[in-house]
Structure formats: structure tokens, C-alpha cells
């Protein structure tokens, strides 16, 4: 296991470096001058050539590509992600200031989705072919067909505009969380429910479940202690690999609900060609992805003793 983790870490670091290098390269090659777009966004007009020159000089935009990359890696080794061209603030600050909101939104939605999806998936799997199974299947497929951003807009129209029950935007009180998290967790729970059902069905047909029945254990114990735990393993793997999907969903939902998270900031930075921010964000997102996958691996090992021990022996 230790070896595997080290192996994974090495690959992950390579992935992260490759990702940020690629994003940087893309930006560098792309048309458009960050100085122009940033001054334009701040002043709402075209800058003069003189203004552009001053801005470029002050924000270190005149450094050639290769020099810039070596500088960046040098800073990276010191844990410095550079300074945003647009705001002049350290990228790490910009990220930290916004990540909390995104993290809360994603985690609450995921927890909500898990709380809905797992019991429903188990219920459907334990009654295959029943009305419950059919209804959850059709509803699940239906929900998976709804674009998240559209659902968000519709919920906004219904609950904010028509019923006036909930705030439509912003961040702060618990009420602000309801619409975005419900929007995000709806699709997620449909997906997780389907996965849970399939995985559970598979496990329920295995011999050790029959064995558990033959021991006279009652149904809830068999389902939750014997089947659920084992059915969880593939589902958790998929949650891990779906993390990117979750993050992407969060970004779109953030723009719909004006959520002060990293998603909207990233989109704005892409438009403004704020190299250090994009580079740093891509690096951090890739790093998070890696950590999440590592956590998934660890939880996997925790749930499935076979992996824990067999790999431990290597």
C-alpha cells in the first residue's frame, strides 16, 4: 500500500505539472492581450498604447514564455502561486478566499445526494422488478436528463419568483444554500442511486449473502452489514472519479446562483487571460483531484480488507 501511494503521488505530481504547463501554454499561444482585456474590464474602454505598456511592465507581462515558466516553477517550489494580473493579489489568497463557498456547496450537495441516493438505491435493489424499482428507475433516468443549470433556473422561478420562499442568489444564511444544493444534488442523487442499485443487486446475488441468510440473520442486518458495505466499494470509486463532474457542475451552478466560489472566478479569469490565476487554479484543482483520488483509495482499502492486506504485503 505504501508503495502504491508513493507511485500514485509521483504520477499525480506529474499530472499536476503537466496540467498547469498545458493550460499555460494554451493561454500563451492564444490570441488577445491580457493587458487590454484587464484594463478594458476595469475602465470599460479601449486602453491606449501607452497605458498598455505601463500595465504590461508593472505586471511582469513582458517576460518571454520560457522564462516565465521557469520563474513559475521556481515560485511553486516555494509554495508561491504568483500574483493575479487582474487584482494584484496572491493567487493563493484569491483561491482561499473563494474555495470555502465552493467546497461547502459541493460537500453539502454530495452529502444530500448520498443521503437520498443510498437508501433509495438499496430499496430498489432489494425489491428488483417491484413498483418502487420501476418508479425510481424511470425517475432517475428522467432526472439524469435534466440539465443542471436549467433545473436551477426553474427552481429559481418557482421558489424565488413565484412562491417567494427562498432567496435566489447570494451567500450567507442557510436559506441561500437550499436552491443551489438542491439543484446540484438532484442530478447527483439520481446517478448515485442507479450506481448503488446496480452494485447492490450484484452483491445481493453473491454466495456470502446466501450464507448470511442461512445463518438466520434478519434482513436489515444482511442488507446493511453484509451487502451494503461491499456494494459501497465500487460506488465510492465512481464518486471519486466523478469528482471532476461534481466540480464542473458546481462551476455552472455558481454562475446561475451568483455563488461567490472559485467557479465564477475561474471563468472570469479565463476571459481576462489572467495567466497566474488560471495556471494556479488548474494546478490546485488537479491537486485536489489527486487528493480526492487518494482518499478514495484509502477508503477503498478501509472498506475492502483484501486490498488493504494484499497490497500491504507487496
Amino acid at each position, binding site marked *: 500500500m505504501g508503495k502504491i501511494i508513493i507511485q500514485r503521488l509521483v504520477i499525480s505530481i506529474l499530472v499536476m505539472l503537466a496540467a498547469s504547463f498545458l493550460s499555460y501554454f494554451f493561454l500563451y499561444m492564444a490570441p488577445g492581450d491580457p493587458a487590454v482585456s484587464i484594463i478594458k474590464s476595469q475602465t470599460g474602454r479601449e486602453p491606449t498604447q501607452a497605458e498598455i505598456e505601463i500595465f504590461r511592465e508593472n505586471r511582469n507581462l513582458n517576460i518571454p514564455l520560457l522564462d516565465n515558466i521557469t520563474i513559475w516553477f521556481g515560485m511553486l517550489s516555494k509554495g508561491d502561486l504568483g500574483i493575479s494580473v487582474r487584482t494584484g493579489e496572491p493567487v493563493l489568497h484569491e483561491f482561499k478566499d473563494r474555495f470555502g463557498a465552493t467546497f461547502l456547496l459541493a460537500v453539502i450537495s454530495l452529502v444530500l445526494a448520498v443521503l437520498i441516493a443510498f437508501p433509495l438505491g438499496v430499496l430498489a435493489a432489494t425489491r428488483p422488478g417491484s413498483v418502487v424499482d420501476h418508479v425510481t428507475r424511470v425517475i432517475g433516468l428522467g432526472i439524469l436528463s435534466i440539465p443542471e443549470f436549467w433545473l436551477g433556473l426553474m427552481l429559481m422561478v418557482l421558489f424565488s419568483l413565484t412562491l417567494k420562499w427562498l432567496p435566489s442568489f447570494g451567500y450567507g444564511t442557510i436559506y441561500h444554500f437550499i436552491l443551489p444544493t438542491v439543484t446540484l444534488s438532484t442530478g447527483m442523487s439520481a446517478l448515485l442511486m442507479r450506481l448503488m442499485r446496480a452494485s447492490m443487486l450484484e452483491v445481493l446475488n453473491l454466495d*456470502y449473502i*446466501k*450464507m448470511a441468510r442461512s*445463518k*438466520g*440473520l434478519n434482513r436489515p442486518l444482511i442488507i446493511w452489514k453484509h451487502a451494503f458495505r*461491499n456494494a459501497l466499494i465500487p460506488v465510492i470509486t465512481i464518486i471519486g472519479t466523478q469528482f471532476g463532474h461534481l466540480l464542473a457542475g458546481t462551476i455552472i451552478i455558481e454562475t446561475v446562483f451568483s455563488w461567490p466560489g472559485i467557479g465564477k472566478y475561474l471563468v472570469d479569469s479565463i476571459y481576462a487571460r489572467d495567466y497566474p490565476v488560471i495556471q494556479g487554479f488548474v494546478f490546485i484543482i488537479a491537486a485536489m483531484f489527486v487528493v480526492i483520488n487518494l482518499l478514495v483509495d484509502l477508503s477503498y482499502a478501509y472498506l475492502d*480488507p*483484501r486490498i488493504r*492486506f494484499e497490497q500491504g504485503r507487496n
Partner: protein
Amino acid sequence: MESVLKIKDLSVNFNSKDGIVKAANNLNLTIYSGEILGLIGETGSGKTVLGQAIIKILPQTARVTGEIWYGNRNILALGEEEMNKIRGKEIALIFQNPSSSLNPSLKIGEQIAETVQKHQGLNKKEAWEKAEAILSQVGMPPRFAHYYPHQYSGGMRQRAMVAICLACQPLFYIADEPTRGLDVTVQNQIAGLLNSIIKNGKGQRSMLLITHDISVAAALTDSMAIMYAGEIVEYGPTREVFKNPLHPYSKGLLNSHPAKGLKPIKGFSPSLINLPEGCKFFSRCSRAEKDCQKEVPMFGRKGGKHIVRCFYA
């Protein structure tokens, strides 16, 4: 002798995509206390289904008719809750293939202890102590209770399986191919273990041993039932059946044993979906006559308890 389990006219059908699978047809069988009854047959003859029907863990798609009398209770008429008081406590099923029948994510000790906890009302700690005791009873160090199934060898897993079944000291055991897939030396150890469980039961314990392995059956069982295509074709005390197999299938089966020179029965056993009318062995039988094809032969008594389902035996 007192009978422990009486199976009367038991039929098991499954609905499948391709039609109705008749896994067992009008089975009648009695198991007496203190005895080991061998149920012998080829793979796919319905042996395992019979074992699982007794403890009622067949899939929901199975349709079971007939009666299974356990003492004065008809198991097939019992509700799930009552059944759970019998399973593991009074009747235990030793599964074939322990590597897939043990829960990979639970320690062996837990898998033993949970049965004890359920049936004997012990707390967790007491149940674990008991689990360790039972493990040593089946010849394994108690600390193995803290190991997971994948850390065991094949023979150890089978022992663990026996230990789980032994946990509540039930009186009736169903052992489903307990020696399958094991080395010969380990097979002997497991067979010895099973034998000792019954023989140490002071005549109270009995076992239904489901196997296709003739030598295990010869060594362990008191009486034998030979099954073919969902039906029992011959039944009798082990020694008599071995000495004088009556049914053509039994003869073939016993002759196909390596010790007797490996003479396989020609042809294949019929699919359980499209069973022929009349004698199921007809197509492979060297002695078959026209009427065998029309009518299922009834059991004929051939001295003592030895009975056979064949017109010409």
C-alpha cells in the same frame, strides 16, 4: 430410529427467460437422527437446490411445492421470522466454495460471533470469546478470529465455514460439496472434521451431505440417495448401494469413479428446462425399452431399505 427431516413431494421450479427450469421433481427423502445421508449426483442434477430449499434461501423466482417436515413443523409453511429462528440455530448449511461464501469485508470471528449473538443473546464480547473457542474446536488457533477470509488458505476457509455452522451447535447440518476444490489431504481433514461433528453428537446430530465425490460419500455416509435430473433414482444404506447399485445411472456413476477404471456414462444429462417425459435417463440408458419413454417408473423396493426407480432393475 427417529426421523429428523422428512421431505414429501418436493418440487422446485424456476422461471427463466428460456422457460421453466424444473430443478427438483416430487422428491421424497427422510433423514434420521444420527445419520449422515449422502446425496449424490452430477453437477446440475438439483442437489444444491434441494439443500437450499430445506433452509429456504432459494431466490425469489423459485416456486417450491410439497412439504418439508422438520420435527413437527412444516418448514415450507413457516414465516420468515420463524425460519430465522431455525436457520443457523437448528439447521446449518455448509456452503460449497467457501471463498465466495465468506463475507470478504468481515473478520472470521465476526462472522461466527454474529450468529451466536443472534441466536444465543450474547453480547459482543461473549460472542467473540465463543467464536475463538469454536475456531479452536475446528482445529485453528483462536487468534485467527481476527483475520479476514482472504488471509486464510482454502482448507482454512472451509474450516471457518464449518465453524460458523457449528457456532450454535445445531442438530441438523446440510453440507454442500464441502470438499470440492480442496487438496486430497485437506479433503480428508475436512471429511474427518464433519464425521467427528456428527459422531460426537451422541446420536442427536445428523447431516445431509451433498456431493458428487463417490469416495467421500463412501467414507462418510450411512445411507445414500442418488439424484438424476431433479429426481432421486436410488436410495439405500451406503454399503448396499455400493455393493449392488441397481439403477443403470447409479451403476454408471459408480463405475465412472477412477478406482473402478473410469468408464464415463455416454451422453449428457438433459437440460432441466425440457425434461423428457418418462424416465429421465432414457436417452443414455443401455437397457432402455420403449415404455421407459412413456411413463416415469415408480420406486421399487429391493430388499430392506434399498429402493430404486427403474422398471428393469
